[in-house]
């Protein structure tokens, strides 16, 4: 009896030994458990995209169990009275069936759509973070390129996805996609005929988009996401500059348990937010749009937000057509410039950016420390220029809705977009560069003279001066010795130096806690600060 009990207690040890005998797992597992991750809230933006992708896979598999990717004409005979008797494709009918006659089907459909929007939105924000902090620099250029590809794939995953229900809105999107293909010089009609299997819309496109949406694109996405994360793991995450942090180390916490738990908790929170949105905010109510008919469209026909910039560019493009008077004559429609050249440039230029910047700065070093945006004003300017372009184009993608809701002339909106697209990006460049330079200057000022205390002193000669709290040692005259800028936040207020305790206590306390910097001379109430610190 005794030996049996011992056997049970020894079981995990025996199991672990067995595993290590066969797979030599102990040493790599130790390294994995011990891996150190730097921590900053901005590093979690990419995680939102990853977690949304997991939700997309899960909810998407459910949707495929009910969706019929067929364009066969059927008469609707379902629960929804508004469309009974209407002729429609089997794809649209099965989408309606999923929304009305499957328990929780609408919830899953909306969850899938919201997760897709969150996926794209978090990719954009994550890319902005990586760009503005210089995280794309050597040795991480390839991962930046993969990230841009992930956005591009997400764009096509989204487009093929919202085309599937074959409702009035998505059919219009397909029609425009076909027009974009037709705008390609020389091969346009051939490409369109190949994709649609003949004349638009044909009877094949939903089936083809379906396999692209559920197998090809997600397969490539999954592979690239794995490579993306693998590279982050191999190269180790970048970190902000700060005490003890160098270009050759990582300062943070071990992956297990704390970091991994935070990831898990964050996943649940992202999942929860998607669930809340899926339940409470209606999205893509396809039953209101009716089946796709080539002769019908409503105003406010907008794509999902991440495609809107392209629609906006197409709207803003003036009607410049190039005729080539050879033979019967050939033409290059205006659609070619925003939709083919524009989209192409929008993806290839960002991919090339890491090398372009390195070349300009003659910078071939390895960078594991991030750069505060203000320390590279030109990069910020270029990024803001691109973002402004993107935002103006996106707003123009819904200019008819804005014109309608705010009673503005539609033509005025178009002209505002055209002018804005040319004027605002350079303006954004100039303004953001100036802001960066101003912030830099103020950092240096505080490092040289100390923090403004708000205490005004009158000198014997009658002049007023503000007392400054030096951040470092002082010389014989009591003037601060200027400090070197360390690439990290410079405290600019007295309570950052511990002059005042944080005002909010309890569950929600400020993210940025006062730095534990020895202050000389000790400010009033420093004993109190000690007490609060120990109490937490």
């Amino acid at each position, binding site marked *: 009896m005794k030996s049996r009990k011992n056997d049970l207690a020894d079981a995990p040890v025996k199991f672990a030994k067995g595993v290590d005998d066969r797979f030599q797992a102990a040493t790599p597992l130790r390294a994995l458990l011990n891996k150190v991750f730097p921590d900053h809230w901005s590093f979690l933006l990419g995680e939102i995209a990853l977690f949304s992708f997991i939700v997309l896979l899960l909810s998407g598999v459910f949707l495929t169990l009910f969706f019929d990717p067929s364009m066969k004409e059927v008469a609707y005979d379902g629960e929804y009275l508004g469309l009974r008797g209407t002729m429609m494709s089997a794809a649209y009918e099965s989408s309606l069936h999923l929304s009305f006659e499957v328990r929780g089907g609408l919830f899953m459909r909306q969850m899938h759509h919201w997760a897709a929007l969150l996926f794209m939105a978090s990719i954009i924000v994550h890319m902005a973070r990586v760009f503005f902090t210089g995280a794309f620099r050597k040795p991480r250029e390839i991962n930046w390129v993969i990230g841009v590809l992930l956005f591009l794939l997400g764009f096509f995953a989204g487009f093929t996805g919202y085309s599937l229900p074959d409702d009035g809105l998505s*059919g*219009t999107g397909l029609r425009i996609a076909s027009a974009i293909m037709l705008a390609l010089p020389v091969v346009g009609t051939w490409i369109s005929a190949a994709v649609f299997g003949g004349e638009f819309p044909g009877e094949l496109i939903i089936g083809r988009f379906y396999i692209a949406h559920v197998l090809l694109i997600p397969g490539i996405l999954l592979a690239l996401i794995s490579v993306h994360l693998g590279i982050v793991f191999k190269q180790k995450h970048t970190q902000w500059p700060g005490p003890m942090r160098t270009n*050759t*180390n990582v300062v943070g916490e071990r992956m297990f348990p704390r970091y991994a738990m*935070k990831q898990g908790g964050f996943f649940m929170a992202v999942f929860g937010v998607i669930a809340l949105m899926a339940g409470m905010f209606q999205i893509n109510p396809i039953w209101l749009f009716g089946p796709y008919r080539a002769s019908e469209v409503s105003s406010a026909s907008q794509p999902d937000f991440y495609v809107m910039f392209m629609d906006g560019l197409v709207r803003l493009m003036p009607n410049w057509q190039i005729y080539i008077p050879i033979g019967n004559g050939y033409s290059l429609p205006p659609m070619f410039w925003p939709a083919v050249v524009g989209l192409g440039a929008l993806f290839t230029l960002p991919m090339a950016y890491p090398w372009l910047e390195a070349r300009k700065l003659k910078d071939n070093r390895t960078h594991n420390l991030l750069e505060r945006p203000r320390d590279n004003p030109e990069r910020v300017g270029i990024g803001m220029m691109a973002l402004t372009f993107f935002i103006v184009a996106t707003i123009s993608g819904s200019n008819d809705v804005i014109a309608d809701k705010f009673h503005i002339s539609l033509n005025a909106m*178009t002209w505002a977009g055209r002018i804005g697209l040319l004027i605002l990006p350079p303006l954004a460049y100039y303004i953001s560069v100036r802001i960066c330079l101003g912030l830099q200057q103020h950092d240096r000022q505080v490092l040289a003279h100390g923090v403004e205390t708000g205490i005004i002193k009158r000198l014997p000669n009658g002049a007023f001066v503000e007392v400054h709290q030096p951040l470092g040692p002082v010389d014989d005259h009591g003037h601060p010795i200027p400090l070197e800028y360390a690439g990290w936040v410079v405290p600019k207020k007295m309570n950052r130096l511990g002059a005042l305790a944080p005002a909010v206590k309890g569950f929600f306390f400020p993210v940025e806690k006062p730095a534990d910097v020895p202050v000389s001379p000790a400010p009033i109430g420093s004993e109190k600060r000690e007490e609060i610190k120990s109490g937490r």
Partner: protein
Amino acid sequence: MTTTHHADQTGAEPVDVLDPHLTRFDIVKEGLRRDDIEIVTYESQFHGQNSKAEKRVVRNISLLFVIAGIAGLAFLVFYIVWPWEWELGHTLSDYYTPILGITLGISLLSLGFGILAWAKKLLPHELSIQQRHGEPSSDEDRLITGQTMMFVADELGVQRRPLLKGAIGLGLAPLGLAAAAPLVGGLIENPHKGEHPMMYTTGFHPSNNGGKPVRLIRDDGTPIRPDDVSAGGQMTVYPGIPHGTTNQHADSPTLLIHLRADDAAETRKNAEEDKNGRNVGSMWGNYVAYSKICTHAGCPASLYEQQTNRLLCPCHQSQFLITDNAQPVFGPATRRLPMLPLTVDEEGFFVAASDFKDTVGPDFWERP
């Protein structure tokens, strides 16, 4: 020795992990040392064990987990018992999806915040430093790998055997094409094939109707008399052929407009003065018909502004002037909407005198 190398990096001395006096944390620290990690600070967030503050945090986290469970259970109950089947009007089933979202959302958020609070509030604060070891391979290793690869090339001996090189290039290349051919070839459709290529013909072409002119029909398939459209009114019409109103003829929807007399006179004048003269005689009385498919991106240009006689495409806001051959006057479209030559058959119904004389739909490269 690797151990001394590690000791140099973190400054810690190696310990004998078999020493029975070591605590578990000592062994963990030895592991960290071997991975070039130094724990700089590692301290509990609380004073002593079971402090009041710690108990409070534990209570809060437990509460979050319990809420997660209750909300999850609520989700399950509502999922099963709440009336979910869609009914006309304002019914309880309208709340099914919101209830699912709220209960599942609360459950997942509570679970998430519970786990986050556990990690952030209960676990000890630590600060660890790991060395990156991001330096490239040594020059020696680079040389060895490079030479190994060159040696592989030598072993294959392609350089020495030019015949083999040529055979690979010329002999095997077709195999690659052969592999690609069925993948690509099956997809290719000739857009210009046939007597009536798809890019240039619509459902109104007489060939669809046994050579006779095609009638204009409504959505429901009924033909149209001139009296059916009042002055200033318009109607979407389709070719009166089998499947004429379906997406099989997605390029055929047409807008039939009954112009007021003065507008009609102006339209006719503009058609006659037009250089290419294609629209001359295409009107029938005060009636004119334009293709509904926008020449920009193919959306139906269906918003008719009676006041200004303009047609607006809601997709990209191209605007066409009806009284001037549907010339684009604003937006990205470059080409006018083609006019359908109208006439009336012996029974008094509208028919298309011929197919559109211009190409319908979005522009493309080889459009003449």
